[in-house]
């Protein structure tokens, strides 16, 4: 098995240029999602989706980002992507086995197998994967599987001009990220922290293969504060189903036995 690869997105370095979005669309030959002016800062991409695998969020905050700004305003940028969870809800819930774990540790949807049931969509706690209506299948970031096979860097990381998106071996990235947080703390940016760097930080997903450095609460970036992969808790439902089935059996047998006796009398 090849080394486990992933992204470390350092949002303090992001300048909101959207080169990652463009590079992703171009390399993967993704169609557009339509053109709409949203009025949400400079974000007209809105959300990750079937044909949008990188999305830069533009956050306008009425508070300064110390120690950089003094005024009553700060601007945060963050390039969002599929997290390639160590324990992936989409993969575990996929009924066809179309979603697989690759040799690089990434989560990959095989377009020739997916039958578009839509179950992965409700199972992603990050709202990443989606079905394109005309196409009928589910799509999301592939971690540029084709490029990785050729020993190349994913298109978004390659195009990022500030190394906000870093690609590499996960253990290596974790080390780099921790050093970066320490460095930021030294310079006075106390709010910097890692989001989903490992299993201890995010037990619900057992860690993200694409993790982030953030400087505000996850909610501000439209990231869930404590996501849980639904399949991790589905045992509760199976137990409850067993109770329901047992109840139905007893009621049916009871009704049939007593009902037929009542008629005999």
């Amino acid at each position: 098995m090849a080394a486990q690869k992933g992204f470390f997105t350092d949002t303090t370095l992001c300048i909101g240029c959207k080169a990652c979005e463009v590079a992703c669309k171009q390399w993967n030959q993704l169609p557009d999602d339509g053109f709409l002016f949203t009025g949400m800062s400079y974000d007209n991409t809105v959300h990750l989706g079937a044909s949008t695998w990188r999305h830069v969020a533009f956050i306008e905050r009425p508070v300064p980002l110390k120690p950089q700004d003094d005024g009553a305003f700060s601007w945060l940028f963050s390039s969002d992507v599929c997290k390639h969870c160590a324990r992936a809800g989409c993969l575990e819930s996929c009924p066809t086995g179309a979603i697989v774990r690759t040799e690089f540790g990434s989560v990959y949807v095989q377009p020739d197998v997916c039958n578009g049931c839509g179950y992965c969509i409700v199972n992603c706690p990050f709202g990443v994967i989606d079905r394109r209506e005309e196409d009928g299948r589910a799509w999301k970031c592939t971690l540029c599987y084709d490029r990785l096979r050729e020993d190349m860097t994913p298109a978004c990381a390659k195009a990022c001009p500030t190394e906000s998106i870093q690609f590499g071996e996960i253990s290596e990235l974790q080390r780099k990220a921790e050093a970066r947080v320490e460095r930021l703390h030294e310079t006075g940016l106390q709010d910097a922290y890692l989001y989903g760097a490992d299993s201890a930080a995010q037990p619900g997903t057992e860690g993200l293969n694409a993790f982030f450095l953030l400087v505000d609460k996850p909610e501000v970036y439209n990231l869930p504060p404590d996501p849980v992969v639904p399949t991790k808790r589905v045992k509760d439902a199976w137990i409850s189903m067993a109770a329901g089935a047992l109840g139905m059996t007893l009621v049916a047998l009871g009704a049939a036995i007593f009902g037929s006796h009542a008629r005999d009398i």
Partner: protein
Amino acid sequence: MAIRYRKSAEPIRTDGRDIDREIASLSGEAATQKASGSSDKHIASIAQPWRKLPEPEHSAPTYYDRPLLKEPIWEWAIPTYYYVGGLTGASLVLGAAAQLAGSTALRLLVRRCRKTGFAGVCLSGALLIYDLGRPWRFFNMLRVFRPTSPMNMGAWILCGTGAAATGAVLLPEDCALSTTCGIAAGLFGLGLATYTGVLVANSAIPLWYESRRVLPVLFSASAAASAGCALAIFPTQDAGSIPKSFGIAGQLLEIAAGVMMEKQAAIVPRVASPLRHGFSGFLWRTSALLTATSLVVGMTGRSRRKQTVAGVLGTFGSLLLRFAIQHAGVVSSRDARASFDQQRAQQR
């Protein structure tokens, strides 16, 4: 969208990729993704809630009040399937129970249950296939056996039910294999009537996730109620009070589980909100009202007409319940704050 390319004198229609097929080929990871040209349809649905300004809540800011999750893409066919599958499964269970309890005395009831089950299982399959993005690939569901996926388990349960119910209906009634098929159909039917609760519960949508312990019980109770009501509308001579007591037990439990589900969800008020407000709340309340009315009418009246009325009311109650849960899930998925509140509450 019309675009003029280097080599083309006339504007040509593109599929939203901006790729001149004369000089480039489609071979990227998403090369096979079908796109019908540029339209704002896809993004417009995402931008819908943005038409109104977000509430300025500085104490708990979100990303422009954008949804965190994607909406379930299932339309009318899936909640209808929950109802039909429940009715099918519960009918087969009752048929098997009657077969075990009554030998030949309940022959008509057993036959009716099996036929209902057979028709229901066919319709269930059709509804499920209809809803797929790629209907011809339905059989891909059966290329793996994956216990982590309730939908995969459901596909196998549905196939098992279909096979057993077909055997039970087609084989001559006095042959031993027919009896075995009837029992097998009852066992598979038990799964079919209850697994849809797990299917819905296995989800990141705040309301469904919060209700994961109640949903399978609610769905199995509602399935029993559906079967009882269907047999009240189309009774058999030998059935006596059997379908009625089966249905009434189901309806009582359906109402109790519904109350429990709302109570459980209301621990985080925003999570329960779709059950209390808006169209989904209206559906939820109406379904409970219909079921309760059906229960009262069914228990007080002995006449054939009253039983039919109770059956019709109960059928609509069960059907509406599935639509209420589906619609409430869609509303819940649009509310990022519901997810945030839920997860913050669990951290505490």
